[in-house]
């Protein structure tokens, strides 16, 4: 019974925060559907890009949390080897994985026989949106983790849902921007 209650206490708060945040992201998705749908195949790319930011900023948050606890970095935005390595890794991963997202999404649209705007456009939007999201997401994650640590909260216990939530917002906005640029550049819609 003790274990059961501790599970409920620990996770209910995290669930409430992440469900509330995610519903707002859902609203953002509705507001951007028009523009997302104007590029055929784009809807297939969305979960891939959203997952990327989770994997990239989630593990960045975990590594920074550990580095703060062990005292190898100070909660300040400065150029030091640890921060540089972590941020560069996050951005490199974002770049490499978004190429993969576009390639696989394109193959899937062919297999499922749904229309797509073509590989070059999916690639452009995915790489621009994904890299932008990883870059902005990394710095936001860093700043929030430092801030949280400074007020005396353990980043390990709160950064998970927070990194996912801010990551979602950053990713949707970056994609929105990338799609807008692609539409201008390739003259779609």
């Amino acid at each position, binding site marked *: 019974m003790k274990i059961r209650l501790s599970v409920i206490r620990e996770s209910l708060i995290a669930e409430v925060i992440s469900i509330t945040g995610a519903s707002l992201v859902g*609203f953002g998705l*509705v507001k951007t559907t028009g523009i997302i749908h104007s590029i055929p195949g784009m809807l297939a790319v969305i979960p891939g890009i959203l997952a990327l930011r989770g*994997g990239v900023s989630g*593990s960045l948050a975990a590594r920074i949390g550990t580095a703060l606890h062990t005292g190898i970095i100070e909660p300040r935005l400065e150029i030091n080897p640890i921060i540089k390595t972590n941020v560069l890794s996050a951005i490199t991963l974002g770049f490499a*994985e978004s190429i993969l997202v576009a390639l696989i999404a394109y193959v899937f649209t062919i297999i499922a026989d749904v229309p797509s705007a073509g590989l070059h456009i999916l690639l452009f939007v995915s790489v621009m949106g994904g890299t932008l999201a990883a870059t902005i997401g990394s710095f936001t994650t860093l700043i929030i983790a430092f801030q949280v640590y400074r007020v005396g909260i353990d980043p390990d216990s709160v950064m998970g849902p927070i990194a996912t939530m801010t990551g979602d917002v950053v990713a949707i906005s970056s994609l929105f921007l990338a799609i807008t640029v692609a539409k201008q550049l390739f003259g779609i819609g």
Partner: protein
Amino acid sequence: MSSMRKILTESFPILTIVTIVELLAGIQLEIRSETLITLPILLVFIPPINNLGGSFGSILTSRISTALSLGDMEPRFVRNENLEENIVGIIIVGLISSIYLGLVVYIVGYLTGIQSFPVTTSILFGILSGLMLTTPIVGVSVAVAFISWNLGLDPDNVSTPIITAIADALGISCVMVIMKLFGF
């Protein structure tokens, strides 16, 4: 820069698997895009349903990993009080959260003027997706925790991305099944 190489080589394979699973979810969205555009409230449901599964899956996995490290649990599917208590707790959280989910989506729809379902339908939608998600996610989380423990992988780096990706794919599938049930 050797540690950058370490981060990249550890993360890349996992992120690749995760990406493929996520895109399986994405292609379902693309196939049903017309319905999703005409009934946008369904789109509002997708991120919270994904988060619901993802967060309780990763909580369960990390609790099991901790219990394994402390020696309170064996990595085998046998009757075990600690494991059962964790699972019961997670199922209760899942049910409460899914009622909350239905309510919050209704409120977001109401406040933002997106045409929504009546509040009872919205909550029913939440409960149905919660019920459909909980069982498979519990199974997958226990399996991932045991497998990564047995392979000696750090569950922090491996389990969470895998669980969230599976939860996303299952979550979107749930929305699709419910759309069929409700006749959209």
